[in-house]
């Protein structure tokens, strides 16, 4: 049963469900955050419009900094600004920041304990035709391994907006991961959101799907399908990968006894891995992970690629059946 407290959109599986990219939620969110906190500044590397920072630039031209195509410099420069009361949001494609700027982020932001927000757009294989060079599917691993880092992967436009506003309030390094494509907006402004608290979107007792990003919607679709076969699936939106919501996960592990994790990222080192690390040490149960299986992406439409890498509802359903056999 869908959790009424999650306040999801009414026609959850309607064909006409509104679709907006998560990066748009960020773009609007950072303007709202900027209105509240005058210290927020935005730095961008020649990708102002595709990271949706043109909105912030229009509203606060004096607080927007064009850093040129120089992600490493942008990251370390932001650390310097953070040392002087500013709250920088640094934006590029996830492949380049945190990708290219990883060591600068590690040393000058995390280790240096500066208050910088890293905004990684165009994450995942759903970037599509640009191909593997632009499809960041290692960024969750790269960021979650860093001490002092908070890692958030919003599931839709609404959540991206909320997440942006919330990370602005945290003092410390945060990474927010965004997608390029328009994806279903299935949460509402009333859907609860708190950094570090996973949301149960659907109650269930047989198995739990733990998902993040736009694939949470695929998890909901899978759960609905499985209902027909009398398989009662819990769906958890695990938007904060670090710090992990251990109590929600532990409770689900105890009550359902089997997990599927779902993410648009390498299986290795991603959200599913972090869940497995936790379960292995605390409450080992069978887990099947959905993610990219140690491969690079390629050109194609988002649909073709999500299918190729086995990231959609039919694959989740298969994985559920497999894990139930292992229970």
């Amino acid at each position, binding site marked *: 049963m869908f959790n009424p407290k999650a306040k999801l959109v009414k026609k959850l599986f309607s064909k006409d469900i509104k679709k907006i990219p998560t990066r748009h939620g960020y773009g609007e969110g950072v303007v709202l955050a900027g209105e509240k906190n005058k210290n927020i500044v935005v730095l*961008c*590397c*020649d*990708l*102002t*419009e*595709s990271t949706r920072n043109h909105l912030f630039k229009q509203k606060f031209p004096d607080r927007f900094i*064009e*850093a*040129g*195509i*120089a992600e*490493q*410099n942008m990251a370390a420069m932001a650390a310097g600004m953070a040392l002087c009361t500013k709250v920088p949001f640094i934006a590029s494609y996830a*492949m*380049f920041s945190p*990708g*290219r700027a990883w060591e600068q982020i590690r040393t000058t932001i995390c280790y240096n304990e500066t208050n910088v927000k890293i905004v990684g757009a165009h994450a995942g294989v759903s970037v*599509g*035709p*640009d*191909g*593997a*060079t*632009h499809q960041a599917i290692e960024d969750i691993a790269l960021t979650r391994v860093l001490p002092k880092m908070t890692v958030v992967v919003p599931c839709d436009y609404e959540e991206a907006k909320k997440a942006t506003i919330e990370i602005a309030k945290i003092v410390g390094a945060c990474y927010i991961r965004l997608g390029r494509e328009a994806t279903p907006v299935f949460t509402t402004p009333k859907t609860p959101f708190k950094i570090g608290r996973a949301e149960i979107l659907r109650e269930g007792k047989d198995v739990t799907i733990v998902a993040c990003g736009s694939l949470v919607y695929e998890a909901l679709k899978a759960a609905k399908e499985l209902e027909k076969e009398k398989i009662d699936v819990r769906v958890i939106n695990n938007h904060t990968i670090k710090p992990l919501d251990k109590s929600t996960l532990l409770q689900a592990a105890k009550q359902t006894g089997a997990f599927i994790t779902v993410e648009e990222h390498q299986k290795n080192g991603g959200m599913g891995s972090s869940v497995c690390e936790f379960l292995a040490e605390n409450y080992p149960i069978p887990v099947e992970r959905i993610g990219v299986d140690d491969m690079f992406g*390629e*050109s*194609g*439409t988002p649909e*073709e*690629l999500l299918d*190729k890498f086995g990231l959609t509802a039919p694959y989740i359903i298969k994985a559920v059946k497999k894990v139930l056999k292992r229970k």
Partner: protein
Amino acid sequence: MHLSDVEAKKLDIKANQIRKDIIKMLVKAGSGHSAGPLGMADVFTALYFNVLNHRPKQPTWPERDRLVLSNGHICPVQYAAMAHAGYFPIKELSTLRKFKTRLQGHPHRAALPGIEVTSGPLGEGISQACGIAYAARMDKKKYNIYCMMGDGELDEGIVWEAFMFAGKQALANLTVIIDRNNIQIDGNTEDVMPLEPLREKFEAFGWYVIDIDGHNITEIIDACAEAKAVVEKPVAIIAHTIPGKGVDFMEYDFTWHGRIPKSDEAKIALNELRTLGGKIKSEHE
């Protein structure tokens, strides 16, 4: 070798064909970059049809000149030039950016023979080109290394690290060709991140610099010959180009960096290319 006027004319026609193919490829792909590829059509034509010592049917020939595309996003122009040169069938151009294609949205070495390095993330081609040039010199190889770069790409710090290395090592077998079209994504280069005085920067790094009109085939070929003759320094050819060259409504406009023509715009563009901007009559639509 200096070109006769007739030969130069032939290459101009070839460049024009390549421009038409770029437009068709982009429309078919449904996404990609327009301004850079169109602007570099003359340079790529000069390279693939005159300058390069290569064997299209034997792309792994060890003695070939190496063409490294550092600004990977302009790959449609390289793909089109390669197809016309005989690396693969011209009809394969219509698979650009499609699922399972060899013509990846950004060029991938392992996907297509003839692509020397995988690129797309800016700044990494030049470092690889330095590595190739250094290794070639260690082994006393005779081939030349040509590295294509965008001007916006020069914002990346790694680029200057490579330039410093090439200067220190006097990598004379390395020639960089800069697409100096004055645009990048967020605007004109001098607004986003000023590069000038670019010639002086290269010179200060120990490079020999040649400024050319990047749409004059003869100048491009002459500059490459001059570069070969320079034996004590790496050479930077600053090719002054017009982004979107050949399609009036795209020229000089940075918003065409990563935008493709809609089908009605493509019609106008193709007609313009076919008639050389209205100078000659087009026989067919």
